[in-house]
């Protein structure tokens, strides 16, 4: 692990959940500086200069996003996206559980930068413990005058409410989150208009991830140049990487982007169990196309992952070792996305369902090699054809698995057909992988 950290520096400090401990470690200095010594524009400029990119998956410049909101007296909102539901991602839970005030301070700085008068933390319903911790932190912040009316005598007022979801992956999509926060079913909206113009209650809204907002107090206190001393030119700062699956030490690790993926998977997380090799790994949660052993030495950052045909996403690495059949992985993911599809757009609703059916067919020995092409074409027809990227989130990894592991799919299919009696050994034509 890097010796230098930002978000995890004090993470294991006893009592960090309490405001007095957080203040003793320098907490709320950023908010005080922003509100009393800086103007809204200066805060925006500092955030933009820091190059902080959204940590929720898209990687868009946080300062730029905040600057898109119209200025002036119009009622504006800030939503912190704490609906962390991407399989393999658990960084925000640790940040909220152990370091709730860092987030509360970050949310209020973000609200000041955006000129928002109401801020909400939309936390997924399953995180009951974390929601209670945040509730306690928010009331402490209110008591100390860090939230509410005329914060720190600056004239800036902002309310802060922790809003609990009730179990829906799609509510992590920003426009679905807004609908859900308005008390509706969490269906995504058509974009444009983007939330910066027309978001919550049709007002301009800034939406940022927990990790993104948790960075803002540090940027305000230490300055954009300090922040840029971490990470790479295009991906400054640190990143919390969640590593899970077939590794010895699953967990959250704070790294500087740009270090080789091997250092994370083998160095920090201990690699797969002895004697086993990495078969596939997801660099950015279950929605990212899979990579293989040959990509382990690539630098782990936005650009390199994209060049390799995948994406950094939430930087949540799921490691799959060679003992796991790839069809099983594809099926489990497809089932997940089928379950979580809100059903609004046909390509996603039907595409996820048919993908599950076809994968089940392969597993049951009821498929022919042609089905792989059909399945690949289903994936191609989902991508880019829906209001949100939920369908794409299944199509990209499943499509990449078919592409990278086609011989295994074919072999799995043939074995299943023989087992089901649909194919006899004599009729079985050797596959290219078997001939070699």
């Amino acid at each position, binding site marked *: 692990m890097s010796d230098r950290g930002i978000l995890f520096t004090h*993470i294991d400090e006893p009592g960090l959940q309490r405001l007095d401990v957080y203040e003793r470690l320098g907490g709320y200095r950023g908010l005080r500086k922003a509100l009393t010594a800086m103007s809204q524009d200066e805060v925006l400029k500092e955030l933009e200069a820091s190059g902080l990119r959204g940590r929720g998956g898209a990687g868009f410049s946080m300062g730029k996003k905040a600057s898109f909101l119209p200025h002036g007296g119009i*009622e504006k909102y800030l939503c912190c996206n704490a609906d962390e*539901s*991407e*399989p*393999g*991602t*658990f960084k925000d*839970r640790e940040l909220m*559980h152990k370091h709730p005030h860092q987030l509360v301070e970050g949310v209020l700085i973000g609200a000041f930068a955006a000129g928002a008068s*109401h801020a909400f933390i939309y936390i*997924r*319903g*399953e*995180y*009951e*413990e974390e929601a209670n911790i945040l509730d306690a932190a928010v009331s402490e912040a209110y008591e100390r005058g860090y939230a509410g009316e005329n914060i720190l005598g600056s004239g800036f007022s902002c*309310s802060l*409410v922790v*809003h*609990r*979801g*009730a*179990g*829906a*992956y799609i509510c992590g999509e920003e426009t679905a989150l807004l609908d*859900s*926060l*308005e*008390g*509706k*079913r*969490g269906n995504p909206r058509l974009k444009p208009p983007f939330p910066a113009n027309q978001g919550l*209650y049709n007002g301009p809204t800034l939406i940022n991830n927990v990790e993104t907002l948790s960075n803002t107090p540090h940027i305000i206190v230490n300055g954009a140049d300090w922040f840029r001393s971490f990470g790479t030119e295009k991906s400054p700062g640190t990143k919390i990487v*969640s590593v*899970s*699956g077939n590794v*010895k*030490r699953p*967990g*959250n690790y704070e790294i500087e982007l740009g270090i080789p993926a091997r250092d994370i998977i083998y160095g920090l997380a*201990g690699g797969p*169990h*002895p004697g086993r090799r990495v078969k596939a790994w997801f660099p950015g949660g*279950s929605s990212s196309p899979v990579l293989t052993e040959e990509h382990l030495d690539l630098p782990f950052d936005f650009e390199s992952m994209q060049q390799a045909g995948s994406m950094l996403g939430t930087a*949540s690495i*799921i490691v*799959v070792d060679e003992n*796991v059949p790839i069809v*099983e992985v594809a099926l*489990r993911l497809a089932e*997940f996305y*089928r*379950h*979580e*599809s*809100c*059903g609004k757009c046909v390509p996603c*609703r039907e595409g996820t*369902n048919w993908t599950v059916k076809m994968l089940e067919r392969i597993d049951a020995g009821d498929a022919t090699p042609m089905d792989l092409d059909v399945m690949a074409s289903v994936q191609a027809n989902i991508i880019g054809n829906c209001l949100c990227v939920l369908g794409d989130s299944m199509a990209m990894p499943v499509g990449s698995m078919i592409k990278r592991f086609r011989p295994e799919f074919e072999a799995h299919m043939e074995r299943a057909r023989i087992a089901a009696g649909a194919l006899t050994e004599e009729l079985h034509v050797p596959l290219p992988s078997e001939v070699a």
Partner: protein
Amino acid sequence: MSKFDHLRGVPGSRNRLAAQVWEGAKVGAPAAEIPELDEVGVPVELRATIEHHMSLYPDYRSAALPALRAAQHLHGWLSDEAILQVAAVMRVTPAYLESVASFYDMLELEPVGRHAIYVCTNLSCQLRGAHDVVEAFSGATGAPVNGSSADGQFYLRSFECLGACDTAPMASIEGHYRGPLTKEDATTVADHLRAGGAPDEVLPEKRFVGDYGRRIDE
């Protein structure tokens, strides 16, 4: 396979008409009309909770989820009576609330067992043996996966990623995260809850890599 079987994959689809849902409603109130507060007996505390949530938002309808969760907490599930109570306080139609409730995984429109156990079976947990864990819970609690036990004590769900892959395989025991779990832990949890133990007191709390000393499980 029935004609509309493929719809089972669509969240919120219940394969039945709204009219059937309301068949059992004793009050006889149509789902499309806002019930009157004095006609629906709303428990004082529930009303206060819902009204508190309504006061937190610029638009009171934002309180729909917190209100439904509060009602479910009180009644155990979102019965027609529970939905009517929320509708009466929030001044929205029961149909609207049910449309919302049917969307979310944690809101129950059928009666369920008293203790909710969500076992994560998504990829990261599956890679570490979640399938065995969920089966063990089913055996220990007597509840089928995604169903309730006959004695009404347990409600077992095979849940999508709960965001605790560092402690995989894991489960949420009435909202308290526990992991990494073994098959034997299922019996411990079931016995503890059956004996009336508090859900947060079962099994040592192991969470986050820092807490369990960079565990190496060879």
